């Protein structure tokens, strides 16, 4: 779109057919509904040259016309639409009054829910929710978008409160939900890799609102954990203007973590190390929430065996995709085992060891599809540390991850020493106190 509109070069954009609705929608919201877009079958990935030649020689599966005819006409046939017109898209504050049954149906039909039953956001309920913060209802909290090429939508304190009511949250949870909204990190990313988010709450707010950091913390056993995470998801999909499969959500398999964005409190009291938010610049007495995006992959094991724990952890790390760096979620028993077995008195020492342990042969590393898509181009452009990695011999064991992308969080109730690695990208830590 940039080369067409900004540089004045007639352009055709090629896509696979599965992205028909989404790319037309993106062109619409960027003010270019007549952008020339031509489609070939999905997938491109893994097809031979001969198979891809058949795509070129074949028909556009959307229009039914020859692909190359579409391409050539896209560059040579006039395309209408005058520039300069501005289209306003207002969002009403209220929904047309109706019965509760009809409103539940309407919210479901408009994809305003996660398909589970919601609490209808009446004015009374929203007003009660707003009592959970000193912030003004009309104050803009942040903005989100589902993917890089879409436009940002913004949302106010009241809009966040509406979604919090829908999720079944209580007013005392609202500062955490507002802080999540203020991160601007969507919990409804559109990526075809079916991403989810993970939210880690630290500080006194955990106890004040009854968050669970112990047994079952990441499961459906805490009203606060469950509804804060759900509110984050609902706010994301509604605040950014939608998360609809085929239109604004393209996650191929979906991701059940998205139901409540893996929202839990860190077990600071039982951790041998400093809390996660303190690592990121806040004080121990501060309350904060930290967000990870791109949460997809999980590996797990039980404890650390005396003889081969280093190898076992190495295997777990190498089981992660190199594009999804590891966040270790350690039950306090496992955390203390890392201290006892590895001597990692400081979390930094453990992260150093993880960074050094997570290695694979350079030839294998560069052959990962996601590395080819997202890291190799940056390496060839000279961006470090990947440019240096690119110089490694094929059999050289190179680090899979950047050290700064590896994280450790303590959670669990010590019913056993099970622990897991969550693949995901740490995004930011936001103060909860600022939203009280």
């Amino acid at each position, binding site marked *: 779109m*940039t*080369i067409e*509109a900004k*540089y*004045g*070069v*007639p*352009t*055709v*954009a*090629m*896509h696979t057919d599965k992205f028909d609705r989404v*790319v037309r929608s993106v062109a*619409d919201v*960027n*003010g*270019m509904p007549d*952008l020339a877009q031509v489609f070939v079958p999905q997938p*491109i990935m*893994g*097809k031979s040259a001969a198979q*891809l*030649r058949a*795509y*070129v020689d074949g028909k556009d599966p959307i229009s039914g016309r020859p692909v190359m005819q579409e*391409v050539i006409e896209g*560059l*040579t046939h*006039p395309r209408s639409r*005058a*520039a300069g*017109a*501005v*289209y*306003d898209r207002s*969002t*009403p504050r209220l*929904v047309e*009054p109706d*019965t509760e049954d009809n409103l539940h149906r309407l919210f479901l039909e408009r994809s305003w829910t996660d398909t589970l039953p919601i609490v*209808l*956001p*009446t*004015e009374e309920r*929203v007003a009660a929710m707003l009592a959970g913060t000193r912030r003004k209802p009309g104050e803009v909290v942040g*903005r*989100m978008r589902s993917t890089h090429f879409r*436009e940002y*939508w*913004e*949302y*106010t304190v009241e*809009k966040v409160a509406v979604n919090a009511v829908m999720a079944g949250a209580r007013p005392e949870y609202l500062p955490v939900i507002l802080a999540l909204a203020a991160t601007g990190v969507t919990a409804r990313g559109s990526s075809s890799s079916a991403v989810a988010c993970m939210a880690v709450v630290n500080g006194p707010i955990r106890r004040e609102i009854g968050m669970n950091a112990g047994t079952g913390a990441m499961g459906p056993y805490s009203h606060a954990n469950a509804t804060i995470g759900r509110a984050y998801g*609902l706010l994301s999909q509604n*605040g950014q*203007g939608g998360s609809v499969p085929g239109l604004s959500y393209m996650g191929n398999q979906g991701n059940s973590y998205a139901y409540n964005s893996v929202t839990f409190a860190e077990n600071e009291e039982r951790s041998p190390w400093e809390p996660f938010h303190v690592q990121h610049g806040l004080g121990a007495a501060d309350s904060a929430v930290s967000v990870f995006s791109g949460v997809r992959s999980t590996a797990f094991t039980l404890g650390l065996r005396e003889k081969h724990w280093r190898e076992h952890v190495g295997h777990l790390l190498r089981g992660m995709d190199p594009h999804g760096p590891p966040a270790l979620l350690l039950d306090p028993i496992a955390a203390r085992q890392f201290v006892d077995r590895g001597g990692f008195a400081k979390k930094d020492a453990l992260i150093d060891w993880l960074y050094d342990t997570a290695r694979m042969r350079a030839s294998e590393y560069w052959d990962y599809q996601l590395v080819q*898509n997202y890291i*190799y*181009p*940056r390496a060839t452009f000279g961006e470090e540390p990947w440019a240096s990695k690119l110089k490694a011999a094929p059999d050289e064991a190179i680090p899979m991850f950047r050290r700064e992308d590896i994280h450790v969080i303590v959670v669990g109730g010590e019913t056993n020493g099970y622990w897991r690695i969550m693949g995901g990208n740490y995004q930011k830590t936001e103060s909860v106190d600022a939203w009280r």
Partner: protein
Amino acid sequence: MASKITVLDPTGYPPKIAAKALAPRLDTLNGRTVYLVDCRFDDSDIFLGQMQAWFAEHMPGVTTVLKRISSVYLVDDPTTWEEIKARGHAAILGVGH
């Protein structure tokens, strides 16, 4: 009959859409240079290589240049866009989502 209630709309506020002009189209591709821009995503380079072969076979009067973007598709690439504007007449970008 069930009574009606009023509830709030949960959706955020979208920005206004400003219509943008598309570039003027060419009268013909013959004698022109068309850049095939590889977005470096999921083997799109192989696909565009096949499209380049198609042009060579069916429209030999068209000069094609296979060009990879400088980094990942998420990053704007003004260097490449400037090159295409200076040396080319049209572009085919692919294969993205």
